[in-house]
């Protein structure tokens, strides 16, 4: 119960506090028009509070609570005076006076350890250079009537460097008071030289301030959480050593990274030529090109990218990618494989579901269930799929869905009756498919014919495997010669365990792709589709020649989003294998280097590699937005 109260209070405090700050600042700037003096007083108090807060945080002043309270009072009074006084000389006196008072306060409360022994030479040099800089700024900025404030500001800056930062901190109380009072007086004088705004200008302040009030919180958070850390990470990538003592090392982190066989390993590349997947890929791609040319010629174009040729080419590309990524290994290869598989499967499945569900019965139910995994966390999904993949010892009953099916298929292909029954069932499925192919041939529908023949061929191969060499999770025991179950260690056996984890991601993100494609398909103009139908296009022709070109930009958006998301995949490998069994990915590599081994340099270098990976996507996004917004 106690914890519950603390939690609720924490939530209320965080949300309420932020709200009060924002509304308060807006209300404060509402005062400029009607009650300028009060507004000025509050701003003066807030600025002093901030200034003394900084001194407080740096442990520069003693009994900081009292000093800060007095400072707020002085700042408030000065601000109020500046809000009332209009004559320039009085304003100067008020500003400088307030500054001197704050300086005196800081000097009186200064700790012994920060008392500068003022070095006259450094101070004079600093002041001269500062004043010169101020004049230079004035000259460059067009030589308006603001020479005095620029000169004063430059001098104050020079004083800060000369009397404070260049000095050794072993001076006396008198010296710290002089150093602080002069600085305060100069800064106060700069403020005092500002003209008293008239009614119109006050109204302008009220209006012009809003953009800052509205934007500052966002920009502060974005810079503090993303921009500055990003730059710091890039810098850290060039350093080495433990977190407390980092030294410059140039590109060593990167050379170390890329010479590590765990990161990228081409040594197995030669095996690709003996892999069946590779030759299968070549075969499919050649067939795809041939079909595309053949169909294209019959339609009068040079190449037809439709269901037939695209499925062959896509299948070939998939096989080729898998052949490549099972031979070239390492963390970066794993990441590329992730991107490759997730894009191919999530985009094609998402598109298929969106098309099939579109305007069909139960569309919303079907889409809901496909989309549901999007709501589940990667951690939850990892646990869910571990149950699906689990492998029990050969003697025990299997409890994972995959291994149960696999072992049961193995049993069936070793039992005479099951062989016959399954062959007959598959044969009964093949017959109507062949009939369908014939109908497709008659109707001139190449995709229908090709699809039916392809599925028939696959089923035929399945019959062959069942009756012939056998298929499924079984092996012959070396000891007894018996047939025993042989479950697959989905999570432990590389390199395919990578793919089984990608499947989890595909399971989640197919819904994402589907939802976006679904919206895009519904946005395709009905008139266009109707026109195509009136011209005698079949459903599949309408889809490939009208719908697909219309949703093509959406495919690009989904792909880039997936690239960004998959590139930083972390949770699934972390929960399922923690990078073991040859499944390391960049995000987990980064986390381990940085937070387990506390090697900030190398961790940052891995993070920079990730960042470089998204740069092309960032570039594309920026170009797209530029086109939309700047015309």
């Amino acid at each position, binding site marked *: 119960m106690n914890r519950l109260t603390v*939690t609720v209070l924490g939530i209320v405090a965080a949300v309420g506090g932020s709200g009060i700050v924002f509304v308060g600042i807006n209300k404060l700037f509402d005062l400029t028009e009607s009650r300028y003096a009060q507004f000025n007083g509050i701003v003066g108090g807030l600025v002093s509070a901030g200034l003394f807060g900084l001194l407080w945080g740096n442990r520069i002043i003693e009994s900081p609570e009292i000093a800060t309270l007095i400072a707020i009072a002085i700042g408030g009074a000065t601000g109020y005076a500046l809000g009332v006084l209009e004559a320039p000389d009085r304003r100067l006196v008020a500003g400088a006076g307030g500054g001197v008072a704050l300086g005196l306060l800081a000097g009186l409360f200064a700790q012994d350890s920060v008392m500068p022994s003022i070095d006259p030479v450094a101070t004079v040099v600093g002041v001269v250079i500062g004043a010169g800089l101020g004049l230079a700024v004035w000259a460059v900025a067009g030589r308006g009537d603001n020479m005095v404030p620029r000169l004063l500001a430059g001098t104050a800056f020079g004083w800060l460097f000369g009397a404070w930062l260049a000095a050794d901190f072993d001076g006396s109380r008198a010296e710290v008071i002089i150093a602080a009072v002069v600085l305060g007086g100069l800064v106060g004088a700069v403020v005092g030289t500002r003209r008293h705004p008239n009614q119109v200008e006050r109204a302008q302040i009220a209006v012009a301030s809003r953009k800052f009030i509205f934007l500052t919180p966002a920009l502060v958070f974005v810079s503090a959480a993303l921009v500055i850390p990003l730059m710091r990470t890039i810098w850290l990538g060039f350093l080495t050593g433990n977190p407390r003592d980092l030294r410059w090392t140039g590109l060593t982190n990167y050379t170390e990274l890329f010479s590590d066989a765990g990161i990228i390993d081409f040594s197995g590349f030669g095996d690709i030529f003996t892999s069946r997947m590779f030759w299968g890929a070549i075969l499919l791609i050649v067939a795809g090109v041939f079909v595309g040319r053949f169909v294209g010629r019959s339609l009068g174009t040079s190449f037809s990218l439709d269901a037939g040729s695209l499925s062959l080419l896509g299948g070939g590309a998939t096989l080729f990618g898998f052949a490549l990524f099972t031979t070239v290994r390492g963390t970066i290869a794993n990441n590329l494989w992730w991107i490759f598989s997730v894009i191919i499967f999530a985009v094609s499945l998402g598109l298929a579901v969106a098309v099939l569900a579109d305007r069909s019965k139960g569309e919303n139910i079907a889409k809901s269930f496909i989309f549901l995994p999007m709501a589940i966390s990667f951690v939850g999904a990892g646990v869910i799929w571990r149950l699906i993949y689990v492998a029990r010892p050969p003697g025990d009953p299997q409890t994972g869905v995959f291994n149960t099916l696999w072992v049961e298929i193995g049993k069936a292909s070793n039992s005479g009756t099951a062989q016959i029954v399954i062959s007959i069932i598959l044969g009964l499925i093949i017959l109507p498919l062949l009939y369908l192919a014939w109908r497709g041939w008659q109707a001139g529908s190449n995709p229908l014919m090709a699809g039916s023949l392809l599925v028939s061929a696959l089923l035929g191969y399945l019959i062959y495997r069942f009756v012939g060499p056998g298929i499924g999770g079984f092996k012959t025991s070396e000891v007894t010669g018996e047939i025993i179950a042989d479950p697959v260690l989905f999570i432990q056996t590389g390199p395919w365990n990578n793919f089984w984890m990608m499947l989890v991601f595909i399971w989640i993100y197919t819904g994402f792709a589907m939802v976006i494609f679904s919206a895009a398909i519904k946005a395709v103009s009905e008139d266009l589709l109707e026109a195509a139908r009136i011209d005698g296009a079949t459903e599949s022709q309408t889809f490939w020649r009208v719908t697909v070109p219309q949703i093509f930009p959406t495919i690009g958006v989904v792909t880039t989003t997936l690239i960004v998301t998959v590139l930083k995949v972390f949770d699934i490998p972390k929960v399922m294998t923690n990078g073991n069994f040859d499944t390391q990915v960049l995000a987990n590599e980064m986390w381990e280097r940085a937070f387990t081994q506390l090697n900030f340099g190398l961790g940052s270098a891995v993070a920079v590699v990730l960042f470089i990976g998204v740069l092309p996507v960032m570039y594309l996004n920026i170009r797209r937005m530029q086109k939309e917004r700047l015309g």
Partner: protein
Amino acid sequence: MTATTERTTAGISALTGRRPLGNRIYGWLRSIPTWFLWILVIVWTVPTFSLFVNSFRTRDSQRASGFWNALSDGDFPTLDNYREVLFPDVGAGLGNALLNSVAIAVVATIIPIAIAAFAAYAFAWIDFKGREWLFIATVALLAVPTQVALIPLLSAYSNGVALTLPIVDRTIQLFPDLDLSGQIPSVWLTHTGFALPFAIFLLHNYIAGLPKDLFESAALDGADHFKVFWRLVLPLSVPVLAAFAIFQFLWTWNDYLIALTMIGGNREALPATIVVASLAGEFGAREHLLTAGAFVITIMPLVVFFALQRFFVRGITAGSVKG
């Protein structure tokens, strides 16, 4: 598509007055794609369903047979796993972790929405120099992976931020060492920063699309930006605010990386995802609790999802299709 197919086959049989066997088989086979859809739906649902069923089975049953055998267990359903996983004195103490998850997700949802709404309004309706570029730069950060910010942020939370001035070599503490690492506020701050590019993008798309007349007449009535924002824009933007809220709530509730990095070893402040993930890392004695644990962290997103699916879908599709 399928509807049209049905219509064509129906047309054929209407013309011929009978339905030959061939056509019947043909029509039947042409609906294979629809079967494919529903098979996919079942396949997509089985994993979640199996988790649900297994979470009500004892350790022994879970090890002895698959979830489809649940009904033949003697003691199905049992709540033992849940009892054990939720309470700290018996098991994993997921109950406390759930409170932390709520604390993280609620605040890390509300604060980014507020901040992003201000900024989106400014980008949409306040004119200033460099507005377009600032907007594009902010939204471009959407693609930046969180990993690039983790190391500097963690050291800022644990040691504060100090700036060492060049030449004079003095160090000034800009952000105090509040010892935030290991505490929930560090996760709030991090989520807020990371969420803003997307939030601004999403809210801006909507707020910029509100009718211009509205703002002109409000300005004529003498309303300033703050009043317009408060009285007009916020009430009108409820749909998109809800869409982002759901998206962000699920995102922060499901987050693992940021909490793991920022909270790390402080057991008191860990959210539920980390507790479940560490159960998963044990590979042994308490593995049967994993099902209940995973289901507990999944139930909240599922409830949100089914109750507010429309908003969630809008949050995801907004900007992707038109943009």
